[in-house]
């Protein structure tokens, strides 16, 4: 598609204390209908959105961490997670949930959607985009 643009959704907020994280996810879902080249960036407190084992019954909110696992169906399969942000928060890669997509160009092989990148690599990713949406 000639008019495809590179969209980056930048997620810098923790999931439940504010509405930013959920709003970002909703925009990603709506935006997916436009079939653009979408990437998601998780840095600073945004990395907390992807932790595994979230159970929200006690706070009366929807556990939308499960919805990230559906994004592969929406052809959203580039999740860039910043390593330094994880480390500063006492987290490791193993603390995040597994998110996969099926690659239609590779006989629907299941592949990981999350890619761990350094802060410098994240800066490069940001600089390569046509449109950046921040939350």
């Amino acid at each position, binding site marked *: 598609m000639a008019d495809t643009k590179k969209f980056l959704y930048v997620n810098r907020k923790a999931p439940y204390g504010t509405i930013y994280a959920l709003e970002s996810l*909703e925009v990603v*879902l*709506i935006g*997916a*209908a436009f079939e653009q080249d979408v990437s998601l960036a998780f840095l600073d407190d945004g990395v907390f959105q992807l932790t595994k084992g979230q159970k929200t019954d006690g706070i009366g909110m*929807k*556990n*939308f961490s*499960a*919805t990230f*696992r*559906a994004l592969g*169906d*929406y052809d959203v399969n580039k999740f860039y997670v910043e390593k330094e942000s994880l480390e500063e928060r006492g987290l490791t890669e193993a603390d995040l949930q597994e998110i996969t997509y099926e690659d239609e160009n590779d006989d629907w092989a299941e592949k990981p959607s999350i890619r761990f990148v350094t802060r410098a690599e994240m800066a490069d990713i940001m600089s390569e985009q046509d449109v950046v949406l921040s939350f």
Partner: protein
Amino acid sequence: MPYDVNGTAVEHDEEGYITNLSEWTKDLAGVIAKAENIDMNEEHWEVVNFLRDYYDEYQIAPAVRVLIKAVSKSMGPEKGNNKYMYELFPYGPAKQACKIAGLPKPTGCV
């Protein structure tokens, strides 16, 4: 006016989506379907159950194209296509089937 399920009132919004997702029952699905002029058969139920499972796992109602792709994968391409889905749910699989399944309106569906 709320849906009437054997004498129990179930509230819905102005478009007919139920307000409290936990109030869904199979009987309620039948009542909503009737309001939508749909006579539920096994094939309708297959899609409704699929949507409920999808919501249970991912906490969203899928967009139409995602639903069709996923149905095609799990039930075969003879069911995972627009024609089949719109024959079952003439006003749109996402809109009508989600309503009957007791899910919120799919995100991005206007």
